[in-house]
């Protein structure tokens, strides 16, 4: 077990923040930054947009959020030039979080409502096809990524139906639509990569997932196994408890 040190810094590659930010993605970034700061560490945020090139040896954590269809189209074209770097980053053990539109672009292919096929990063073995209706509402899932059957709550709003290939789901749907409204899977995960439809945003009400990603990022940069010091999560747990009631679970 390696102790974390005040000098420790996580290097974040934030992809297209000015376009892929529709469901309050900046809340997730604020959670990364603050939960490091409260432990005496820091987050170094590097923003990448259209035309920029990404060096996979330079980042411990990657983030891609959701955007409107129009922005997603523009981003998809540009991602083709960054896909190799993102896959190399994942293979190298960097932590990556893809949310909402992000998970769609993390797969091999996203077929839009108009039938157009957008190539994705291919870092997660999945494909997404836009449906004629949107899957909207509060959602709760259960994941085993950070201990047995940890509940994750959020809100989903997506037209895409995602089908997984040779990749594990992020969690099992307790209540809500999930990847495709049919197979009860939600999101996808491999190595230190998570893709999910849950926003709300995801991390403020699910601090265990935030800390999991941060410990992965620190392990990537500094090696060994990292255990983060606990924080006072009273407010986080309280908001989590209220969100549970929105899918009919007890507070």
């Amino acid at each position, binding site marked *: 077990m390696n102790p974390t040190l005040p000098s420790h810094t996580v290097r974040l590659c934030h992809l297209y923040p*000015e*376009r892929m*930010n*529709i*469901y*309050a993605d*900046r*809340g997730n970034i*604020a*959670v990364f930054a*603050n939960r490091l700061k409260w432990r005496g560490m820091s987050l170094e945020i590097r923003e990448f947009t259209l035309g920029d090139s990404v060096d996979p040896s330079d980042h411990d954590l990657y983030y891609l959020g959701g955007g*409107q*269809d*129009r*922005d997603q189209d*523009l981003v998809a074209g540009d991602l083709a030039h960054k896909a190799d770097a993102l896959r190399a980053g994942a293979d190298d053990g960097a932590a990556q979080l893809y949310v909402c539109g992000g998970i769609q672009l993390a797969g091999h292919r996203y077929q839009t409502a108009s039938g157009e096929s957008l190539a994705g990063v291919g870092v997660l073995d999945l494909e997404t096809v836009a449906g004629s209706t*949107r899957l*909207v*509402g*509060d959602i709760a899932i259960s994941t085993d990524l950070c201990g047995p059957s940890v509940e994750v709550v959020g*809100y989903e*709003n997506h037209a895409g139906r995602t089908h997984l290939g040779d990749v594990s789901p992020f969690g099992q749907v307790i209540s809500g639509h999930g990847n495709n409204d049919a197979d009860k899977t939600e999101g996808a995960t491999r190595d230190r990569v998570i893709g999910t439809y849950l*926003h*709300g*945003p995801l991390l*403020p*009400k699910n601090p265990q997932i935030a800390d999991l990603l941060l410990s992965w990022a620190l392990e990537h940069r500094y090696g060994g196994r990292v255990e983060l010091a606990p924080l006072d999560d009273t*407010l*986080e747990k*309280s*908001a989590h*408890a*209220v969100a549970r009631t*929105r899918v009919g679970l007890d507070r």
Partner: protein
Amino acid sequence: MLAAVAPTVARAVGSLSRRLGRGGGTTLPGVVLLRLDPDAIERSAGRLDAGSVVISATNGKTTTTRLVVDAAKALGYSVTTNRAGSNLERGVAAALLDLGRRRAELPVGSLGVFEVDEAALDAVVSKAHPRVIVLMNLFRDQLDRFGELETLLERWRQMLTNARAQPGPVTVVANADDPNLAELVRSIGNDIDVIWFGCNDATVGLDAVAHASDATTCRRCDHPIRHDPAYLGHLGAWACTNCEAQRPPLDIEIVSASSTATGQTVKVRAGEQHIVVATPLAGLHNAYNIVAAVGAALAVDKRRGPADGTSLSTVATALGRTQPAFGRGERVAIGTRELSILLAKNPTGVNQNIRTVLAAPDPVHILAMLNDRTADGRDVSWVWDVDWEPLIERAQRLTLTGDRAGDLALRMKYASADMSRVVVVDEADAALDDALGKAPDNATVHVLPTYTAMLDLRTILTGRGLVADQWDET
């Protein structure tokens, strides 16, 4: 036969609904009317010899409707409006109910002025055949209900295409400062009559376009848009960095708008004329509402064709008398303190409210109320897109309440607020007392409620005898 009795049945339902205390009875009669008589809007609106004005936007439609009503009355029109803020198709139908009752000829100069929900605009326009369509802004709002901004833009494009094809002239009064909207209106074609309004006071420009901007790229060539400056959200003096797309030349402009927390003086240029509107409506968003209303008044009056032109001084005086709509900058005295209620329903609106609040001398006292009921939007993630940081810096106390107060508390925590100044009080009644109790004598408590939270607050204030029943408002 059914159509003949429909208004009577619908009105009876409204009266019964009001007596039962269900939603003020403002929309149920409209629902009944449309069910019994689907052509009611078309036929009743057709009796208005001066035609109808419809006003739609993400933010500002209620206040602008009040402004247009007051201006039109001052110009001598006999106005029918849906003032209670019920702005779906059934709300317009309910407002037209009274006309259905009148057998006699309506007076000359009968005009409809209707606030219309952005997602109901296409349906209302196709039935009411308005002569004036006021399009003010589209910001991201209630994504779970409206879907993406692009979806609404596409519906508005279709609406305008249909409106142009309808018999009789149509004037569009449009916000040139909204890049998406301006390009949308221009894409309809050159033969549509447009009055462009916007802002030309660089002193009220923002340092940067807000985070929650929905117009970062050119709709023609996908290159970045530059705002020089941005005024409010993605509204501004915009131009594409690559192609020739840019803000259309303004027909009506805010020459200057300098606001305190309690009002402002707006200098307006309309064509060659200048007017000054001294108004209790604070904030740059209200300056935009005022120039939109000037545009609507000119568009309406152009059809009548007054020999000596529209009296803009009459319009200016009337606009200056318009009081805040309930919950939109409304002020309520409570003992030695005062509440200022600023409806908070989407990131751009709240950002603008915060800017207005911070025009007051510090320190500020805030009561923020976050609900996630249907009319608020079920998805509360939007509170993360609000720039609370400047408010947090100046807030002496932040009292949080509402069904999702815990989400607001998290937002404040992760914005590095001093959490000793932030308190969550579950019950709205107790939260109000907390906010008032912690504020010194003669202080203003600024309330930022979502829509249903505002109704809850209204009920509390009514119960304490501090405000009249909202539905009695005329």
